[in-house]
C-alpha cells in the first residue's frame, strides 16, 4: 500500500535537493563560521550567501534576517524581544484568538508578567477584521501580531490593511508566516510587516531551522544570549547545514510557487467538492476562497475526528484533526471554537493539507474510500439516531 501523506501543514518531507545541498556541511565543511581559518570562513561565506538568497526572496535586506531554531523560537523572540525592548514606551500587545500556540502561550506569559494583551476575535471564517485591530490600539500599544495564514483552517488574513493601520499608529507589526512562506507570495514590504517568522520544515526544508525577519530600526532585545552570532541578536553557533538547507528550500519554493499554487488549489477544491458531494452533513471550516491553496478542513457530523484519522491511518493515509481526547484535555481546537464552530462539530473536524507531491490519484483515492469509512463510523455512533 502506498502511503498518502496529507499533513503537509504539520511538516513536509525534506526535498532531496535540499538534503543534497546540506550534506557537505556535516562532514567536509564542518568549520565554525566564527573561526578565522579558512575552514571556518568558507562556512561563514555559505551562511552569508544563504542569508542573501532568503532575504531576496521575501523582499528583505540580508541584515534583517536572524536565523533561529524554528518558527517557535522566531515567534517567541519577536514577542518577548519587542515587549522587553519597548517596555518603557508601552506594555500593550494586540494579537488574535486563532494564533499558533507559540504566539498564544508567549502572550499568556507576558500577560502574567506586566503586559496587557488584547485578543482580537475572528469571524466564522476565521478572518480578522482590520477595524477591530484599529479600535484596539491605544497609546500604550507597542506591537500587533497577526498570522499571515492559519495553520488549521488556512484562512489568509488581510495583512496589508493591518500593515497600513499599524504603520499609521506607529506600532510594530509581526506576522507568523510559518504556513505562508513557500506556499503563497510573501513580501515583507507589500505586507507592511516589521517582523516575520518562518520555519524551514514547512517548506521542504529541515526541521530545527527557521528565521525571524526584523525590519531595520526595530527595537528588539535578543532572546538567546551568549556569543556575538547574528550581530548579537541570537547567540549560538550557526546551524550551517540548516541555513544552507533553508536557503535551498526557499529557492525551490519560489521557482515553483505559481505553478504549485494553481495545481494545489485545483486539487484542494476537488477534494472539498468531493467530500461535500459524496458525504452527507459535512461543512467546510475556514474561508471558501481566502484560504491556503493546500488546506482542506471539514467537520463531518457524528464522526469524531480522531476515530476517522485512525481509520484513515489504517489505510496508510495521514491527516490531522482539531479534536482532542487526552486525559488532560478534552478541549477541541481553539481556532474552530474562536470561529464559533460548536464543540460538537469541532470534535468532528478533519484537516487535509496537500503538498507538492500530492497527486490527482491521491485525492481520487481519498474520495473513493471516505464515504464508506464515514458510514461505518456513523453506524456505530449513538449520535446518529438524532437524525434517524
Amino acid at each position, binding site marked *: 500500500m502506498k502511503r498518502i501523506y496529507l499533513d503537509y501543514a504539520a511538516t513536509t518531507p525534506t526535498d532531496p535537493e535540499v538534503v543534497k545541498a546540506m550534506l557537505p556541511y556535516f562532514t567536509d565543511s564542518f568549520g565554525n563560521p566564527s573561526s578565522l581559518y579558512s575552514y571556518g570562513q568558507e562556512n561563514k561565506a555559505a551562511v552569508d550567501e544563504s542569508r542573501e538568497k532568503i532575504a531576496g526572496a521575501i523582499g528583505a535586506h540580508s541584515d534583517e534576517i536572524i536565523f533561529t531554531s524554528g518558527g517557535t523560537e522566531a515567534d517567541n523572540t519577536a514577542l518577548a524581544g519587542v515587549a522587553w525592548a519597548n517596555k518603557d514606551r508601552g506594555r500593550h500587545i494586540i494579537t488574535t484568538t486563532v494564533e499558533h500556540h507559540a504566539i498564544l502561550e508567549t502572550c499568556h506569559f507576558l500577560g502574567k508578567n506586566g503586559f496587557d494583551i488584547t485578543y482580537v476575535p475572528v469571524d466564522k471564517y476565521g478572518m480578522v477584521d482590520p477595524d477591530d485591530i484599529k479600535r484596539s490600539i491605544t497609546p500604550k500599544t507597542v506591537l500587533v501580531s497577526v498570522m499571515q495564514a492559519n495553520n488549521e483552517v488556512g484562512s489568509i488574513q488581510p495583512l496589508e490593511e493591518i500593515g497600513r493601520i499599524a504603520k499609521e499608529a506607529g506600532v510594530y507589526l509581526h506576522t507568523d508566516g510559518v504556513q505562508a512562506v513557500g506556499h503563497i507570495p510573501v513580501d515583507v514590504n507589500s505586507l507592511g510587516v516589521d517582523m516575520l517568522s518562518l520555519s524551514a520544515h514547512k517548506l521542504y526544508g529541515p526541521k530545527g531551522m527557521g528565521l525571524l525577519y526584523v525590519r531595520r530600526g526595530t527595537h528588539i532585545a535578543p532572546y538567546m544570549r551568549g556569543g556575538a552570532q547574528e550581530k548579537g541578536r541570537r547567540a549560538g553557533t550557526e546551524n550551517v547545514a540548516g541555513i544552507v538547507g533553508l536557503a535551498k528550500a526557499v529557492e525551490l519554493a519560489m521557482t515553483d510557487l505559481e505553478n504549485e499554487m494553481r495545481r494545489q488549489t485545483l486539487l484542494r477544491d476537488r477534494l472539498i467538492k468531493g467530500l461535500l458531494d459524496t458525504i452527507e452533513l459535512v461543512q467546510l471550516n475556514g474561508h471558501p476562497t481566502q484560504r491556503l491553496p493546500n488546506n482542506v478542513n471539514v467537520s463531518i457530523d*457524528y*464522526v*469524531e*475526528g*480522531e*476515530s476517522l484519522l*485512525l*481509520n484513515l*491511518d*489504517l489505510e496508510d493515509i495521514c491527516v490531522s484533526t482539531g*479534536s*482532542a*481526547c*487526552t*486525559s*488532560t484535555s*478534552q478541549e*477541541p481546537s481553539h481556532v474552530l471554537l474562536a470561529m464559533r464552530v*460548536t*464543540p*460538537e462539530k469541532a*470534535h468532528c473536524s478533519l484537516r487535509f493539507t496537500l503538498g507538492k507531491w500530492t497527486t490527482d490519484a491521491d485525492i481520487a483515492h481519498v474520495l473513493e474510500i471516505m464515504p464508506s469509512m464515514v458510514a461505518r463510523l456513523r*453506524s*456505530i*455512533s*449513538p*449520535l446518529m439516531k438524532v437524525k434517524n
Partner: protein
Amino acid sequence: MTGFYNDKVIDHFKDPRNVGVIKNPDAVGYVGEPAWGIDAELYLKIDNGIITEAKSKAFGCGATIAAGSVVTEMVKGKYLDEIAGITNEDVDRALGGLPATKLHCAKLGRDLIQAAVKDYREQHKGQRDGYR
C-alpha cells in the same frame, strides 16, 4: 505497523463487537458529552441477574470505540454484582493496555457498565439483583 494503539485496541476499533441497540432492554447505561467528543451507550438484557445480551454504540476516539466494544464482551454471561465490580484497570487490561494519555477511555468503559447497573437497580429498587 507501529501505531499509537496496540493490536487489541485496533482490532476492537476495526471490528467492534456487539454493535447496536437492544429493543426493550433491561438496563441502559449512558455516558458522555458530545461537546467533549465522547458519547456511548450500553444496552443489557438481564435474566435472573445474569447478563444474557449486551450491545453498545460509541462516538469518540479510537480508544473510546474500543472500550465501548470490549465492555460488551466483559459483561456477557456475568452476574450483575460481578460486573458492578469491574474497574478501570480491568477495562484497560482487557484492551491490552491503553496509551497513558488514553486511560480515561478505560474509565469510560467502566462508567458505562456502572451506569447500566445503576439503571437496572433503580428500576428494581428493594429487590435483589437475581439468583446465583
